[in-house]
């Protein structure tokens, strides 16, 4: 509740351009995710521009990204195919997948750097066509995996060049604010070649923020960053989300995706799954309770069979049991009571939690097994 109040106060203080609620879409573009305000409260607090991103009147209500059966081939090789999803304004969308799955090619395609071979897409309100390339690139920003900085130039000179390319008004001020947002204001005059990999990554992020994009594509933004710097980037992403910036995040750090993303998609040439991390876990894995006792039960079947919300059980070691349950909140008290009645010395009863990593590995393993068959 206290976070909600803080968030409301902050929103009231901010001069905002109203963003209309997102329209319902076939693949369920969610409204801004709840429960993110704690992180937002710790934001860097001095990001590029105040207020929310101005969503053009013509695109209000429409998704920031809308992709339908998109595909890209390089000759006979399929980079990705039949990819469809929609992303709302202000959503942080995680794009996961193994190496070579087509993540970077998808980003490049949506960023108008390469042309799709099939399907269609709308990016920031514009159809993805060669004629709209400039208009789309004005509204988006891409931070590639490799920072791609001019190493002999200073940080400020690098950003100055890109401020010109984006035709940013008042570039000096914008550069200053972008550098402060990534905590690099004191390194503005250092040559990029003298910076560590992590600092270069931060310069690349500052560069991506210069144009105040509606849609920001971040390709592995925390690769090579130390934990503190990575946390700063996470906070910045939270801050951008609050301002209505849509973030398309490709990452290999699954805990990062789980912490930051409203929804994630797992790509392995084709889109394997899409949804909120919790939904994916529930969809892929049965809910279970892990029970540990001091000594093995003499009649475990007699203890667990017939308990409400318990669908079955199996051994997990000598004195361990895994119960498949439909509702842990009902099953856990029932199992506890049954164990006590049976005179068992209970060490622990806990709900087994599957991480996004489990989901990811399960899907990738399924693909690997399918390709072996």
């Amino acid at each position, binding site marked *: 509740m206290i976070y909600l109040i803080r968030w409301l106060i902050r929103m009231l203080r901010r001069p905002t351009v109203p963003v209309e609620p997102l329209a319902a879409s076939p693949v369920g573009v969610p409204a801004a995710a709840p429960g993110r305000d704690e992180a937002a409260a710790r934001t860097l607090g001095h990001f590029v521009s105040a207020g929310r991103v101005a969503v053009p009147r013509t695109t209000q209500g429409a998704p920031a990204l809308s992709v339908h059966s998109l595909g890209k081939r390089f000759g006979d090789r399929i980079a990705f195919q039949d990819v469809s999803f929609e992303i709302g304004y202000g959503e942080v969308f995680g794009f996961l997948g193994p190496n070579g799955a087509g993540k970077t090619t998808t980003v490049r395609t949506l960023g108008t*750097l390469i042309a799709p071979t099939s399907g269609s897409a709308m990016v920031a309100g514009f159809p993805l066509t060669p004629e709209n390339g400039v208009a789309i*690139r004005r509204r988006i920003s891409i931070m590639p995996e490799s920072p791609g900085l001019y190493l002999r130039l200073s940080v400020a000179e690098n950003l100055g060049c890109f401020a010109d390319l984006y035709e940013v008004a008042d570039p000096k001020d914008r550069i200053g604010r972008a550098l402060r947002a990534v905590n690099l204001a004191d390194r503005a005059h250092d040559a990029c070649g003298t910076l560590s990999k992590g600092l270069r990554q931060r310069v690349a992020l500052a560069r991506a923020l210069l144009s105040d994009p509606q849609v920001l594509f971040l390709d592995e933004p925390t690769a090579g960053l130390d934990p503190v710097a990575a946390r700063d980037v996470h906070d910045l992403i939270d801050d951008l989300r609050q301002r209505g910036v849509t973030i398309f995040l490709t990452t290999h750090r699954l805990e990062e995706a789980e912490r930051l993303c409203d929804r994630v998609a797992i790509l392995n040439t084709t889109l394997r799954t899409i949804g909120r991390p919790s939904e994916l876990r529930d969809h892929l894995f049965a809910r279970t309770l892990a029970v540990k006792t001091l000594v093995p039960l003499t009649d475990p079947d007699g203890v667990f069979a017939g308990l409400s919300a318990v669908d079955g059980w199996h051994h997990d070691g000598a004195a361990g049991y895994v119960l498949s349950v439909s509702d842990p909140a009902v099953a856990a008290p029932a199992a506890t009571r049954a164990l006590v009645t049976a005179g068992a010395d209970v060490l622990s009863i806990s709900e087994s939690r599957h991480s996004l990593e489990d989901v990811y590995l399960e899907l990738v393993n399924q693909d690997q097994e399918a390709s072996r068959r």
Partner: protein
Amino acid sequence: MSVSKRRVRGIFRKELREYRHNGNIIVAMVIFPLIFLIQPLLTVLTEATSASNGLAHEHVLLYMLAIPALVPAALASYSVVGERQQGTLEPVLATPIRREEFLLGKALAAFVPSLAISYAVLAFFLACVELFAHPGIASALLRGPDLLAQLLFTPLLAAWSIWVGIAISARSSDVRVAGQLSLLASLPSVAVTTLIALDVIHPTFGLALGGAAVLLVLDAMGWRITSAAFDRERLITGTR
């Protein structure tokens, strides 16, 4: 298609800053014309006045047109493939910049220093001739039409060399290959100017006018041809 001056200027200024931070680029650009200058200077400064009759049939000044043909080739050949190799091309192409703007910025960044160096070397040569050569030699060399041809053809040849270099750079996958091909591509211009300088091809007003017109057309076409050769997707993915 409208060209954004600011984006062109952005690329141009970035390139000049890179030259400034990497002094070796300028040194390499200056050294070559200076070496080129030694032979004609020695010839002119050591000639006796009696040689002025012989020089009157040659066009030593035009020999120096090889400088604007050769100097920008190296810069132009690096312009696209160099960015690609150092990983800076993708972030630039991800901005709203059009390929024409990108190429124009790159071309200007090679054109301006090449022109400055070519004219500076010419001015240095003329000053040396005026100050140190025998008066007869000086008057045999410093002829109005030759000077005019030098002034006129320097930018035309430099521009042509730059567009050829950039076109090669946009299609190459290796900096070294692009450099060598660009140098080779500028050799025909050098050969023609040398043959004219040595009076093998007799220079006339008509030839100069025709040559200038052809170069002007080639330079104008160069931008279009180079733009067509610039394939954003191939440059990003290395395919096609």
